[in-house]
C-alpha cells in the first residue's frame, strides 16, 4: 500500500480522538464535519469520474434524494434514523442504477449537463409536491442521545472512511480494472468482453449510494431541509473543485482536496460573507487554469 494511503489511515485515527482533544469542539466539530462530508462526496464522485470517466456534474441530485428519503421516512412514517438513512442511500443508489443505461449513452460534457438538468428538475419537483413540504421544506427533530456533541461528526467520519475504502478497493480490484478500461476506451473495453453497460451503471450506483448517505446524514445534522439547500448547484461545484484540486482518479486526492478547500475557505474568508461567492468563483477559474491536473494528479 502506498505511503500516502497509510498516512490517510493514521489521519482517520487522529480524527477519531479529536473530539476529546480539541478545545472549542462545537466550532471545530462543525468545520471538520463539513470537510468530511465534502470528502465523502468527492470520493463518491471519484468512483464515477476518476475511475470510469463519467462526470456526474449533477451528482448532488442523489444527495437530495438520499436526504429527502431519510427525512420523509423519519417524519411521516416515524422510522428511526439509522434505518431511514440506509433506505435513503439505497433509494439514491437504485435510482442511479435504473436511469444509468439510457443516461450513460452520453459522454463528457453532455453527460455532465444532463445530470445537472436532472438535479435542477428534481429540485423543482420537490418544490412543487405536497408530501415533500414544497418550498417550505421539512423540519426534523434535534438529535438527543449518546455522543450528543459529536454524533454527526462520527457518522461523517465513518462515511468518509467507507468511501475511502471503496476507492481503495476500486483502485485495485478486477471491478476497478473494468471501470478503468471503460474510462480509457469504451469500445475497446466492450470488444475484450467487458459488459460496459453493467459496469458503468454499477459505478454510477455505488457513487450515488454514497452521495445519498451523505445527504441523509446532512439532513438530520442540519435539521431543516428545503429544495434549494438539498439540490444546490453550488454543492456540485464544490465537490468538483475539491476533486479536481486534489487529483482525479487517485485514492488520496479527493480527501486532500476536500480538506484543503474546506479549511482554506473556513480560515480565509468565513467572515467575508458578502464576497464569498466572488471568491469561490475566482477560485474555480484560477484552479482550473493553474492546476488543471490537481495536486496529486498524474493524468
Amino acid at each position, binding site marked *: 500500500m502506498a505511503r500516502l494511503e497509510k498516512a490517510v489511515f493514521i489521519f482517520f485515527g487522529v480524527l477519531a480522538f479529536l473530539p476529546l482533544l480539541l478545545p472549542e469542539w462545537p466550532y471545530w466539530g462543525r468545520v471538520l464535519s463539513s470537510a468530511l462530508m465534502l470528502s465523502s462526496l468527492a470520493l463518491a464522485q471519484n468512483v464515477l469520474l476518476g475511475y470510469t470517466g463519467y*462526470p456526474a*456534474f449533477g451528482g448532488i441530485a442523489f444527495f437530495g434524494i438520499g436526504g429527502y428519503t431519510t427525512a420523509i421516512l423519519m417524519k411521516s412514517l416515524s422510522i428511526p434514523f439509522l434505518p431511514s438513512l440506509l433506505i435513503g442511500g439505497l433509494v439514491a443508489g437504485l435510482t442511479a442504477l435504473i436511469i444509468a443505461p*439510457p*443516461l450513460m*449513452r*452520453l459522454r*463528457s*460534457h*453532455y*453527460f*455532465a*449537463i*444532463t445530470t445537472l*438538468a*436532472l438535479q*435542477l*428538475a428534481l429540485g*423543482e*419537483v420537490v*418544490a*412543487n409536491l405536497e408530501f415533500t413540504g414544497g418550498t417550505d421544506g421539512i423540519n426534523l427533530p434535534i438529535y438527543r442521545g449518546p455522543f450528543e456533541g459529536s454524533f454527526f461528526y462520527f457518522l461523517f467520519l465513518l462515511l468518509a472512511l467507507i468511501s475511502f475504502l471503496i476507492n481503495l478497493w476500486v483502485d485495485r480490484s478486477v471491478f476497478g480494472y473494468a471501470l478503468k478500461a471503460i474510462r480509457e476506451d469504451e469500445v475497446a473495453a466492450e470488444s475484450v468482453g467487458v459488459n460496459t453497460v453493467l459496469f458503468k451503471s454499477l459505478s454510477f450506483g455505488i457513487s450515488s449510494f454514497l452521495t445519498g448517505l451523505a445527504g441523509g446524514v446532512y439532513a438530520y445534522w442540519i435539521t431543516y431541509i428545503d429544495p434549494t439547500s438539498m439540490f444546490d*448547484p*453550488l454543492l456540485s*461545484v464544490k465537490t*468538483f*473543485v475539491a476533486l*479536481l484540486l486534489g487529483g482525479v482518479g487517485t485514492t488520496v486526492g479527493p480527501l486532500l482536496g476536500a480538506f484543503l478547500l474546506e479549511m482554506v475557505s473556513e480560515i480565509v474568508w468565513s467572515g467575508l460573507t*458578502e*464576497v*464569498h*461567492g*466572488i471568491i*469561490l*468563483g*475566482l*477560485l*474555480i*477559474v484560477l*484552479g*482550473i*487554469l493553474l492546476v*488543471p491536473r490537481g495536486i496529486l494528479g498524474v493524468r
Partner: protein
Amino acid sequence: MDLLLQLLLEAILLGTFYAFLSLGFSLTWGVLNILNLAYGSLVVLGSYLAYSLFNAVGVDPIVSLPISFAVGFVLGLLLQVSFVNRVIKLEPFMVLILTFGLDILISHTLNYFFKADIRSIDVPYAEGSFIVGNLIVSEVKLLVFLLSLILTALLFLFLRFTWTGRAIRAVALDVEGARLVGISPERVFALTMGIGTGVAFLSGNLYGILQGFTPFDGGLLTVKAFLVSVLGGLGRVESALFGGLLLGTMEIFVSFYAGESWKLFASLVLMILVLIFRPRGLMGGKYYGEA
C-alpha cells in the same frame, strides 16, 4: 378560441426573443464545442449595462444596442484570449466547470454592486398595449419581438453571405480543412467568442426592456439558451427560430394550464429527453457549416 390565439401570439412574441437569445450560445457551442454555462450571466451583464447607460447617462435602450454589442464583443475576445485558448485542449467538461465558475463570479459580483433588487428599464414610448380584433398586444413585447427578428436576420445574413461568416462556418465544419484553404482557426475562434458574447449582451439589452431582472437570472437564461439550441439542433439560424418558438409555446401553455411553478421543470425534463434520445436536436444538422 380567442384564448388559444392569445396564447399563441404570446408564444410567438416570446419565442422569437428566445431564438435570438440562443444564437450566441449555439454559435460558440457549434464552432468551439464549448457549453458556456456563464452565457446567461453574460446576458444579465448586458441587461445591467443597458440599465446603467439608461439611468446614469440617459441613453435610450434601443440606441444602446450597438454599444452593448461592442462591449460584449471586446469582452468575448478578452475571455477567449485569457481563458479559453488555454483550456480548450483539456477535457470539454473541464471547460464546463470553468464557465460555471465564471457564472458564479459574474452573478455574485453583480449582486455585490447592484444588490438582489429587481431592476427594469422602462421605455417611455412602449408602456401600454393595444387591441387587434380580440387580441391584446403588449407594446413592449412587440418591440422586443421586432428587434429580435431584425437582429436574427442580420446575423443570418452575416453568416450566410459575408466572407467572415463563411470562414466561421468553414471552421465549424472542419478545422483542418479550413486551415488548408488559408483560414486561421485561431482568429475565427476569437471572432466567434466575440460575436457570441456580443449577441449575449444584445439579448441582455432586450431582456432588460422586456422584463425586470436580478443578478441571479443567469442560470435560468442559460437553460433557455441551451434548450432552444438542443430543440432546434445546432445547425442553422433557422433551427434556432424553430427551437425558440417551440420553447416559447411550451412555456406559455405550461404556465397557463399547469401553473408558473411547473415551467422550469417542464423545460428541464424536455431537455433531458432530447439529450438522451435526440442529441442532434429535433431538426437541423450538427454544425453551423452544414448547409
